[in-house]
């Protein structure tokens, strides 16, 4: 058994972000595997609401006690909300990576982007091969 969980119903990028589509919008965060690898998260640089990014582009940075990592868009879109609570409680991303640890909500500009991503099973295999 591994030290991380992979949530069903989410899609995953190779750079360890998850995306949960909700109609024409989507929530984005980092996977439980990612937070486990990074260890205690202490800071996040959030994007501005209204900013647009393409799939694969970095939209923010997370910092743990030992590393700083870009957070990338699994799919293209415009940022319509950010989880400002993470600024005062970045550890939420460690505690609840798929729920309260969501980072941004976007309006998808090209829903087909999600087809290129891994489902839970593929991502589980991908994490296991790196462990």
């Amino acid at each position, binding site marked *: 058994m591994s030290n991380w969980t992979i949530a069903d119903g989410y899609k995953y990028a190779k750079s360890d972000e998850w995306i949960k589509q909700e109609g024409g919008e989507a929530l984005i965060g980092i996977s439980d595997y990612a937070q486990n690898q990074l260890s205690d998260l202490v*800071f996040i640089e959030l994007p501005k609401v209204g900013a647009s990014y393409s799939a694969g582009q970095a939209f923010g940075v997370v910092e743990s006690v030992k*590393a*700083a990592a870009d957070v990338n868009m699994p799919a293209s879109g415009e940022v319509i909300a950010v989880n400002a609570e993470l600024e005062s409680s970045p550890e939420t991303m460690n505690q609840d990576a798929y729920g309260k640890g969501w980072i941004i909500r976007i309006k998808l500009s090209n829903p087909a982007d999600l087809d290129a991503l891994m489902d839970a099973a593929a991502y589980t295999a991908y994490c296991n091969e790196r462990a």
Partner: protein
Amino acid sequence: MSYTPHTEQDVASMLKIIGVKTVDDLFVDVPTKHRFPKLELPEALTQMETMWELEDLSSENLPAGKTAMFLGAGAYNHYSPSIVNHLILRGEFLTAYTPYQPEISQGTLQAMFEYQSMICALTAMEVANASHYDGATSLAEAVILALNTTSGRKKIVMCPGVHPEYRAVVRTYTQGMGVTISGDDMDTADPDTLISHMDDQTAMVAIQYPNFLGQIMDVAKVVRAAHEKGALVCVVTLPVPLGMLKPPGLFGADIVVGEAQGLGIQLGYGGPYLGFFATREKFVRKMAGRLIGQTKDVHGEEGFVLTLATREQHIRREKATSNICTNQGLMALAATIYLCAMGKHGLKRVAELCYHKAHYAADQIDAVKGFSVDRSKPFFMEFVVQCPRPVSEINQYLMDMYGIVGGLDLAPFYSSRKNQMLVAVTEMNTREEIDALVDALKEVV
């Protein structure tokens, strides 16, 4: 005598694993004609002969302690209490490397934490890093911080009163970055002119206090104007004047930097010196350099560590705001020991001595026919003297006749300041020395 710890067996087994026969075989990728060039070295000297040769060379230098020193301009002849060298020359401090392993580095980490704390107290700022190489580096890093926190602004307004060499270093640092530096193409420092250069593209305004000419400007006015335009303000300062003057933090400065050589560090022919950097908490993640933090270990005991290392280049790589990942440890320690030995009252006393001696000297020099002191602005321990002849001639005379080191010739740095000398007076200048300078100047006219 061989200083390497490897035995012949160690070397042989390493070569075997690599798959070569000799150490020379490891250099086969270097073209033959360059591989083992003939070095035209003179014959080796004995230790005794080496010492004689080096002593000959160093005897051509004139130590500041053997002169009456009136030259400042960024490096000052202040007194270094004997306890400073006594402690920093101890092997534990002299040879200690970067404290990556806090478990075995608590001594140096605590000293650096106390250094940071004292810099904050002196400047009235919220956080200070563990130091930079010198004042010029600190200013350059302040510029980089401002560029990174003002969303795309690319203009720096630079007061001409900032040390000319610091301004040159900033230009070197920012070349190729599309940054414009304006405001310093004139020879006088005036708040209103400086303010006229500020606009909504200005990332940062840099002023010096006291400035390069020793003068004290209206810092609060400049800070207000800069903040109205959304620009940051960096005040370049010195630690000794802060023993007497209101600290820049209380004027609302966003960043305070400067040269701390005056805190017990010898002139040393130009270095090593000590750049300090202090700022507001909100900028801490954009600040360059090492940062020591106070924390608790697994047993709940207080300890110190290198912290927020994720700012630094070796972790953040090309996204780091600076490539600096070091500090000036030994000199920061010297400054810390100096401040502990002098205390608040001692530093205040040094500042008062510098201020009063400089004002005595200014009064005496002003009374010499042919010389006049610039009184247009209040000054701390340096002042500008309009001389009747070129400064280089006057200084040659002072040195040849009396072994006096005169002040800085300002003409090379500010083109309209012909025959103007920047005179510095510190606690080290006795009244007799000052009077001797004045008498010598009377002969110069």
